[in-house]
């Protein structure tokens, strides 16, 4: 990962129109953004589009980035907001036509791993995807991206207490999905 100083240099160069500097920013943060949008939307072509949109939105508004948070956190915030918008759009689509584009897209094949690992990971991803969006976002940020609870609250612009209670409920729901009959209620 680049140092904050390196990022600042790239950012200043990108603001002056240096595309290769912006490309370095994309390369440095695409893994984290992939994890966020795919955690929210699944491993779909739609997630890839939202991922592109994250960097394009940042490019258009990079002058507004004042460095109050790290660049990674700023991009993650954009990724979460765009993913939540996409989920809303899919819900509207689902309401009108009965199936979401997310469900219709073909899943990409997993990388070469043992069948058990692939199955287990897929099971977890499906479980996370089946959570309501408000719980999914806290799980993705806190457990997968490993942001602190405070950072998660700042990214989602929610009070700390709300994030803590959503985390607790999200974990109970996740457990009830992964271990059926474990007692938690799933909405």
């Amino acid at each position, binding site marked *: 990962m680049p140092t904050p100083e390196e990022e600042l240099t790239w950012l200043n160069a990108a603001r002056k129109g240096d595309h290769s500097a912006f490309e370095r920013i994309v390369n440095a943060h*695409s893994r984290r953004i992939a994890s966020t949008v795919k955690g929210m939307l699944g491993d779909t072509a739609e997630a890839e589009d939202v991922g592109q949109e994250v960097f394009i939105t940042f490019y258009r508004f990079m002058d507004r980035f004042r460095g109050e948070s790290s660049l990674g956190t700023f991009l993650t915030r954009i990724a979460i907001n765009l993913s939540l918008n996409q989920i809303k759009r899919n819900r509207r689509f689902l309401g009108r036509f009965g199936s979401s584009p997310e469900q219709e897209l073909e899943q990409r094949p997993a990388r070469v791993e043992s069948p058990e690992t692939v199955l287990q990971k897929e099971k977890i991803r499906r479980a996370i995807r089946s959570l309501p969006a408000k719980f999914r976002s806290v799980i993705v940020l806190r457990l997968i991206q490993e942001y602190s609870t405070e950072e998660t609250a700042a990214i989602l612009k929610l009070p700390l207490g709300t994030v803590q209670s959503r985390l607790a409920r999200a974990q109970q729901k996740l457990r009830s999905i992964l271990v059926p009959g474990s007692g938690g209620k799933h909405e």
Partner: protein
Amino acid sequence: MSKKMKKLLYRSFDSPLSVKERLLLENTLNSDGALRKERDRISELRRTAVEADFPAFTPDFTRKVMTRIMGLPDTIAASPELFYTSLAGGFRRLAWAGALAVAVMVTLHLLLADSLALENAWLLPDLSIQELLELTLF
């Protein structure tokens, strides 16, 4: 396993507990097997969630982003959204400057006047409505 302790247990994974809360949780964990099981299940769940390992974007992701960026208007300032944003910013500055000028003017008038009457603040003539109406008639 009480609801309160379960809540405390969940919170302990994500935020620091006070000394009192920590002691209470430790003591209850020592005596409550169900709570211990719940702790182990949550630890396992969190470890598993980290392993979800969402895959990276396709290898040509950066190229696609850069191609789309190259297709954007030449200068960032040419974007209509940014133009309107900067226009709004300009108006905001103008409004602040105007408000400041009015405040300075009102303060100055009040300092120079004999009393704190509203007429003095705006340098209005000290006339009654009747007098004002008569003045406009002529």
